[in-house]
């Protein structure tokens, strides 16, 4: 696969899945990458340290590691299959099939991320739109509890604020208004300048209610110190929007997850006066893909257990609850739970057999009982993924790897257990 001309690549650095990246390859190695942000660049250049096949932290051949993984999962009474957000949809589908074969629980990082928002969008309770529609039509964009300038660096330049769109020929200069509602003056807040609304931690629900009051023409009331005039001004901007979009970040979701119906009420109120959609700020490149794929197979988006009577879903089947008490073996694919889960929950991973399938050596490989290396999705392995707005994207490999894909590893495990 030697080439000197750049090839067009879809970046798997984050859930924006930028499809205009130019990569120069020489001797099967990346020489230069154009148009990708630093996150994309880090992704395209691959792992700093690649994972190796191990059993009990001793190096073995990959076949032995796969056999050991199958044996652990077969013996387990309540196995958990977790991760999946950095895997292709094809690997996710294989994982769902493995969970069905094992009668296991399956969950993804969306369980403690944007799953709750994606669920409401998929069942039609919250209106949403594509990023292309945002670029062509959006005149008011709100980043609520989100800092895309840090998490999805090309978000504002490629879609939501700076570009010229079909109905927004003057781009950010005259045709778009960017609003940031957050607890900290983030990089995104700096771009929004005077349209940054600083709220106290946990103050989102109250701010949302105040804004609904403002929209309905009532005087907003807040328990914390905030200039009510500014809320009324914001409500006026929202009312005038022709095509508004709210980018809901984890800051918002974590703040109001106990009363999530409030978002539904807010969107409904807002759309009585205006035209607003909501897009969840999914982080990992195919987090939303897992929700779509699992929904297609089971009717649920995450936290599923396969029983004799069919799939069931509930908070008790979430990764957090299963790791607290329940799971007696874990297969992790496309995630680094030791780096991403709270220590109090991740700690239990050392007490139960842990199998990790990943291209890179990471924190979790240090404690895994079995490590199985695989090709990096979107670099050595192609397939499909779902962008943060729900659009299915093709991803192609750019270099030739010599290992198995994560899908093949999962299918090999499945062959040995069934």
């Amino acid at each position, binding site marked *: 696969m030697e080439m000197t001309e750049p090839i067009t690549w879809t970046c798997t650095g984050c859930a924006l899945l930028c499809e205009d990246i130019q990569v120069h390859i020489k001797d099967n190695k990346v020489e230069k990458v154009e148009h*990708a*942000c630093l996150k994309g*660049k*880090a992704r395209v250049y691959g792992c700093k340290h690649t994972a190796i096949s191990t059993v009990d932290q001793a190096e073995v051949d990959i076949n032995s590691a796969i056999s050991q993984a199958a044996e652990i999962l077969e013996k387990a009474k309540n196995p958990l299959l977790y991760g999946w957000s950095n895997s292709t949809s094809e690997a996710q589908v294989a994982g769902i099939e493995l969970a069905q074969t094992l009668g296991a629980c399956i969950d993804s990082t969306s369980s403690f991320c944007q799953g709750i928002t994606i669920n409401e969008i998929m069942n039609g309770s919250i209106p949403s739109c594509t990023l292309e529609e945002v670029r062509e039509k959006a005149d008011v964009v709100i980043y609520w509890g989100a800092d895309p300038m840090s998490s999805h660096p090309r978000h*504002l*330049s*490629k879609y939501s604020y*700076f*570009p010229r769109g079909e109905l927004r020929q003057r*781009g950010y200069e005259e045709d778009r208004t960017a609003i940031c509602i957050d607890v900290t003056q983030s990089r995104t807040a700096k771009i929004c300048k005077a349209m940054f609304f600083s709220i106290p931690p946990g103050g989102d629900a109250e701010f949302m209610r105040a804004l609904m009051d403002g929209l309905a023409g009532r005087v907003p009331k807040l328990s914390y110190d905030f200039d009510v005039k500014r809320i009324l001004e914001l409500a006026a901007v929202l009312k005038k929007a022709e095509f508004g979009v709210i980018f809901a970040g984890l800051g918002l979701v974590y703040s109001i997850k106990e009363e999530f119906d409030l978002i539904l009420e807010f969107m409904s109120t807002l759309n009585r006066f205006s035209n607003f959609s909501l897009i969840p700020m999914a982080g990992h490149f195919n987090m939303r893909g897992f929700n779509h794929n699992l929904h297609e197979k089971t009717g649920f988006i995450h936290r599923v257990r396969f029983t004799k009577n069919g799939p069931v879903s509930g908070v008790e089947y979430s990764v957090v609850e299963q790791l607290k008490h329940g799971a007696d073996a874990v297969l992790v694919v496309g995630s680094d739970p030791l780096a991403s889960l709270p220590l109090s929950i991740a700690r239990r991973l050392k007490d139960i057999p842990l199998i990790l399938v990943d291209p890179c050596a990471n924190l979790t490989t240090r404690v895994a009982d079995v490590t199985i290396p695989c090709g990096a999705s979107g670099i050595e392995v192609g397939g499909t993924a779902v962008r943060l707005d729900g659009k299915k994207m093709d991803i192609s490999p750019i270099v030739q790897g010599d290992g198995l894909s994560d899908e093949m590893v999962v299918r090999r495990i499945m062959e040995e257990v069934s």
Partner: protein
Amino acid sequence: MAFAVALLSRTKQYTECPPLMEEDKYQDSRQKLKNILKPMEGAEETGLIIHEELCSGCGNCVVACPVNVANDPHGSGRGFGPTNEKVIFRVENGIVKAANIKECRRFGKDRILCRACIDPCPTEAIEFV
């Protein structure tokens, strides 16, 4: 005063002042001036400096720059990576690079103090001196 103006407009270097360079009593002033003018060393002809260590490659400047938009309306202007070589800003290996600097609105006799690339930068990686 004229020499100071020439220094700031970068038509003269501080090393071209004989007393400053030759007389010991100006040693401290020489060092101070050297430090003050240090940021200007890496500047382009328009005074543009890119602090690569601060850049995250977001491409805001690529899409906001009016020259990029005019010269590449269907690429940079629409939020995509540049599709031709006529642009000033493009992102390579995760960091913004500048080229065609004579196209910049800050270049030449009729220059204007355009800030289109500075204002959208969330990390203050772009500066003009």
